[in-house]
């Protein structure tokens, strides 16, 4: 059942569950962060509407900088703002930032310890019709490998708002990953968000496997868990929004009790959440893992739900992965 302590959306499994793009939470959080601290500034590379930077730009025009289609410039101007006392948020599609401007982020933000927050939008293949050029599927890997960089992947618009606010308050570089399409609102305003903490969203009476998931696919993981329970297969679903720092204790505790793991992410299966979990378990508590995500392939054009299904990240695929991993114990 859903964890009652976290006060998740009670209408979550209704057919008319509220749907909202996760990126909306960035826009809301950015305005709140700007209200709370006058040092918060925002930059955008010709995408203020689709990165939801527009509300901040309208409310605080003197603290918003339009850099044009120039992601390298956006990152490095932000680096200069960050080391001189500002808290800059930069936003573009994740394929361009942190994709195109990776080295600038590495040198002038991460190594330089500049207080910049990087919002990577349109992450994952659920971007849809724009095709693989605009679907960021390696961004968690490149940002997670970078020293001095934190990585958060919120699962809905409300968690995205909280992650954005948390990033403003944390000192140092942070990467925030957001998706484009509408997706079910899973959490509520009462649900806590703490950097470095994972949360048990679902726990069956007798769990056998742990599903560790982040971002857009948390909903599919919960659907899978609910259906598996009907088939008498118990699971725990762990919402792992904080990729870095990783909630190592929580993951190790769960895997100690239920030593079969499925990781789920809208990202390559290499180097992302699955990679992070595999590294941890290989060192402290080896256990069989199945990885749900893109299997070393690029996406393509299509409707978001068609793509999720074609590339094996639907609720059914997660169910299959659980069954498969349980056979490996």
């Amino acid at each position, binding site marked *: 059942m859903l964890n009652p302590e976290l006060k998740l959306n009670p209408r979550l499994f209704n057919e008319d569950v509220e749907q909202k793009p996760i990126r909306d939470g960035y826009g809301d959080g950015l305005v709140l962060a700007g209200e709370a601290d006058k040092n918060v*500034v925002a930059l955008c590379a010709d995408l203020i509407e689709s990165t939801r930077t527009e509300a901040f730009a309208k409310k605080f025009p*003197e*603290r918003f*900088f339009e*850099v*044009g289609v*120039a992601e*390298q*410039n956006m990152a*490095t*101007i*932000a*680096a*200069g*703002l*960050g*080391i*001189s*006392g*500002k808290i*800059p948020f930069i936003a573009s599609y994740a394929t361009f930032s942190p994709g195109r401007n990776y*080295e*600038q982020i590495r*040198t*002038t933000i991460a*190594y*330089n*310890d500049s207080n910049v927050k990087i919002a990577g939008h349109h992450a994952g293949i659920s971007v849809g019709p724009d095709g693989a050029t605009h679907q960021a599927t390696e961004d968690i890997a490149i940002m997670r490998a970078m020293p001095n960089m934190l990585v958060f992947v919120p699962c809905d618009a409300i968690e995205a708002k909280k992650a954005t606010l948390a990033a403003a308050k944390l000192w140092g570089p942070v990467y925030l990953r957001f998706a484009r399409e509408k997706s079910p609102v899973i959490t509520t305003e009462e649900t806590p968000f703490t950097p470095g903490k994972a949360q048990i969203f679902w726990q069956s009476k007798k769990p056998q496997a742990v599903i560790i998931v982040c971002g857009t696919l948390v909903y599919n993981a919960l659907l899978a868990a609910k259906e598996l329970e009907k088939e008498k297969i118990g699971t725990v679903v762990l919402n792992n929004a904080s990729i870095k720092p990783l909630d190592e204790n929580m993951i190790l505790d769960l895997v100690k009790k239920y030593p079969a793991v499925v990781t789920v992410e809208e990202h390559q299966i290499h180097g992302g959440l699955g990679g992070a979990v595999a590294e941890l378990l290989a060192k402290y508590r080896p256990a069989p893992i199945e990885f749900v995500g893109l299997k070393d392939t690029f996406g393509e054009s299509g409707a978001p739900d068609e793509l999720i299904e074609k590339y094996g990240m639907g609720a059914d695929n997660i169910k299959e992965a659980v069954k498969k991993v349980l056979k490996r114990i």
Partner: protein
Amino acid sequence: MKPIHDGRLEYLEELANKIREKVIETLLEAGSGHSAGPLGMADIFTAFYFHILKHDPKKPDWPERDRLVLSNGHICPVLYTTLAYAGYFPIEELKTLRKLNSRLQGHPHRLALPGLETTSGPLGSGLSQAIGMALTAKLDGKKYRVYCLTSDGEHEEGNHWEAAMFAGKNKLNNLTVVVDRNNIQIDGFTENVMPLEPLKAKYEAFNWHVLEIDGHNMQDLVDAISEAEAIYEKPTVIIAHTIPGKGVSFMERDFRWHGKPPNKEEAKKALHELRTLGQRIKSEHE
């Protein structure tokens, strides 16, 4: 900005030459690093840290200080040497350049050493960082000025021109760029590798105020900086024509000295030339 008075100018020129000598000694000790750029920029660094910048080596984090951003981080031997002579850290520490556990990294790292405004090395990213600092000054109503020193070769980087467009658009009059126009880069002469000319016209087309100076004439530089302070509607770029390897005859204008240090023999010869001002005076060291 006040002009440099006569006695002071002579002192600064001697100091710049001393900094060149120390750059040679430091590179010899390090066993790797760049020679031509640091020698070519010694006059400009000396003028900045001993006349132009408002700064306090005892308080490197003084919020009101002027910012000097070195974009082409590879010429850091001259930055480090000038900072040491200005009092940011002991001159003795220059011996640790590029060595394990040193604060003097092969390319400057802001967190490692007091007096460094940023981390640089990968080219083309300094101007935009300087822009960020200039924006902060404007937002906070601060009077400090931001200077960015760049190489000519790094104008081949797209990031630099993205930044140039932004600074022109935003009329950042508290930002001044100095281009080390020494005409060389690793693979050869800039005009062969990738022609930059007409450089002045390029900047003008990006809505900058452009000045050209002899990069070895400190008074020229100070005058240009004064003019930049008076320009209200635009950022200013000062194209400083310099001689790479300045002061060492066999290094001057030779692109092969862009990225290598002198060996023992070459260093001895270089130091002799610097200490005798090219055989014009007697060296006090020999």
